[in-house]
C-alpha cells in the first residue's frame, strides 16, 4: 500500500466515525484510523484518534485491541508511564482475558524503561510460563531472566555530581569520566594559579579580570558539566541494559507466542 493510500484510508475511517450509528462502530473507525496513521509513522495523530474511543460499550476483545494499540503507540513515543497506565487499565477492566498475553512483551519492555526491575523480572517469568515450548526450554529462559535482573544498572545522582564539583573534577570522576575530570582539575588549578601569581606580582586588575573570571567560568561550568555527564552515564547504562533485553524479548514473542 502506498503512503497516499494510508492517508485516504485514514479519511475513510474518519468517515466511519462520522457516520457511525453506535459507539462500537465509532471505536472501530478510530482504531482503523489510528493504524493508518501508525503506518504513516504519525504516532501523535494515531494517539489523537485513539483518545476518542469510548471503552464502556465495547466487547472485551475490542477493548483490549484499542488499549493495546494505545499502549504500543505510547511506548513508541517514549511515554512509558502512560503506557504502563494502559496496562493497569487492562488488568482492571479485563482481568481474565487470555488475549492479554499477546502484548505481555510490551509490558515487560515498558517496565524496563521505567526501571522497575523487580516487576519486570516477575512479569517476564510469568510470561515465559505461557510459552508454547518444552519445559526445559522454559526453565533455561527463566534462569536467563534471573541472571539478567541480578545485575541491574546502578545510576548516578545528578545533584551529587554537581555538589562534588565544588572540588574541581570530583564530580566528573563520580560520573565516571576520569579524563575530563583530570582536565577540569588542571584548568581550574591553572586559573587559580594564574590569579594568585598576579596578586603576588601586584597585578591586581589582571588577577581580578582574567584570573577570577577564568576561575569562575571553569568552576561553575564544571559543576554543570558534571551534572550533564551523570545524566549521560545513566542513559548509557540504561541503554546497555535494556537494548539486549528488548531484542531477546521481541525474538521470544515471535518464536514462542503464536
Amino acid at each position, binding site marked *: 500500500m502506498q503512503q497516499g493510500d494510508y*492517508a*485516504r484510508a*485514514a*479519511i475513510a475511517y*474518519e*468517515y466511519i466515525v*462520522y*457516520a457511525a450509528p453506535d459507539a462500537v462502530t465509532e471505536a472501530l473507525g478510530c482504531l482503523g484510523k489510528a493504524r493508518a496513521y501508525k503506518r504513516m509513522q504519525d504516532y501523535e495523530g494515531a494517539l489523537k484518534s485513539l483518545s476518542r474511543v469510548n471503552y464502556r460499550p465495547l466487547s472485551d476483545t475490542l477493548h483490549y485491541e484499542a488499549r493495546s494499540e494505545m499502549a504500543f503507540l505510547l511506548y513508541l513515543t517514549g511515554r512509558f508511564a502512560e503506557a504502563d497506565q494502559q496496562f493497569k487499565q487492562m488488568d482492571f477492566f479485563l482481568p481474565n482475558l487470555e488475549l492479554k498475553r499477546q502484548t505481555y512483551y510490551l509490558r515487560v519492555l515498558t517496565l524496563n524503561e521505567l526501571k522497575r526491575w523487580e516487576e519486570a523480572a516477575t512479569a517476564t517469568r510469568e510470561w515465559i510460563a505461557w510459552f508454547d515450548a518444552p519445559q526445559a526450554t522454559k526453565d533455561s529462559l527463566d534462569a536467563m531472566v534471573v541472571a539478567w535482573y541480578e545485575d541491574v544498572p546502578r545510576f548516578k545522582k545528578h545533584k551529587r555530581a554537581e555538589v562534588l564539583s565544588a572540588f574541581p573534577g570530583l564530580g566528573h570522576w563520580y560520573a565516571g569520566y576520569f579524563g575530563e575530570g583530570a582536565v577540569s582539575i588542571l584548568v581550574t588549578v591553572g586559573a587559580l594559579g594564574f590569579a594568585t601569581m598576579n596578586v603576588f*606580582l*601586584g*597585578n*591586581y*586588575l*589582571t588577577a*581580578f*579580570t*582574567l584570573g577570577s573570571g577564568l576561575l569562575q567560568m571553569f568552576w561553575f561550568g564544571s559543576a554543570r558539566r558534571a551534572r550533564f555527564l551523570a545524566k549521560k552515564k545513566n542513559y548509557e547504562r540504561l541503554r546497555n541494559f535494556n537494548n539486549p533485553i528488548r531484542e531477546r524479548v521481541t525474538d521470544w514473542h515471535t518464536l514462542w507466542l503464536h
Partner: protein
Amino acid sequence: MRYCLVALLLICTLGSSAQVTGNGFAERLSFVNHLTNNEFYNEAVFELERLKAETFGPQQLDSIHYLLGWNLHMNEQLRESSGYFSKVSTTAPFYLKSAFLGGMNYAYLGEHQLAREQWASVASEDLKIKRLVAFEQAGLSLLNEDFAAFDSLQQDFTGAHYAFASEEEKLRSYRKKLGAVKRKSPLLAGAMSAIVPGTGKMYAGRMYQGLFSFVFVGVLAGATYEQYRHGGLSNPQFYLVGSLFSIFYVGNIYGSVYSVKVKRTEQYEALKTEVLFNMHVPLRTIF
C-alpha cells in the same frame, strides 16, 4: 425506436456530466465540516481537493473554494488559503468573509500591497463593510509605518460599529506608540562606544548592558596598562591581556551598532503584532 435512442442518448449525456447535486454533495460537505470541526485540516483539504476534481456548478464550487481557504487558513498555509479565498465569487454568501480573510492572510505574510488590493476590491454597499475596509487599510498603513496615511484614514473612525469600535481606539494608541519610537543612529552609537565603552549601548536603550561593557572593557584596559607598566613590550602577559582588551573593545563597538537596530526592531515588531491581532479581531466578530 428513433425516439427511444434519442432518449437514451440524452440520459447518457446527462449521466456522463457527473454532476453531483442535492443530497450527495451536501452529505460530503457535511463530512468535510466534521473534519474541520475536529481540527483534521489536512484531511479536510485532501477531501475537498478530491471534490474539486469532480464537476460542479458555480455555487458548489464556491463552497469548495471557501472551505479550502478556511481549512488552509486554520492550518496556517496562508498563501494557498488566499488563493482559494480569491476564487469565491461575489454572489456567494461567504464572499465577504473570504475577501477579508484573504486580505488578512496577506497582511500576516507581510505582503501589504496584496492585502491592500484585496480589500480595495471588496464589493459591498453596506456602510459597516465600507468602514471595516477603511479600518483594515488604516491598520495596513500602521504596519507600513505610513503615519500620514493612517492619520488620514483614522478620521473616519466613528466608534459607531460595536465590532471594531474598541479596536479603532487601540489602533490610535498604537499610532502614538509607534510615533514615539525614536529613530536612533547606529553610527552615533558606535562612535560613542569607541570613545567611552558602553555609552553606545546606553544610547540604544540597553542601560545594564552598557554599564557592564563600560566596567568590563575598562577593567581590561586597566589590566593591559598594568601589564605594560610591569614588563613593558617584552612582557608576554601584556600581549595576552591586550588582545583580550582589543577583542572586547571592538566587540563593544559592534554590539552598540547592532543594539540600535535590534532595539528598534523589537519595539516595532511588538507593536505590529498587536496591530495585526487587532485587525483580525473584528473579522472574527463579524464573520
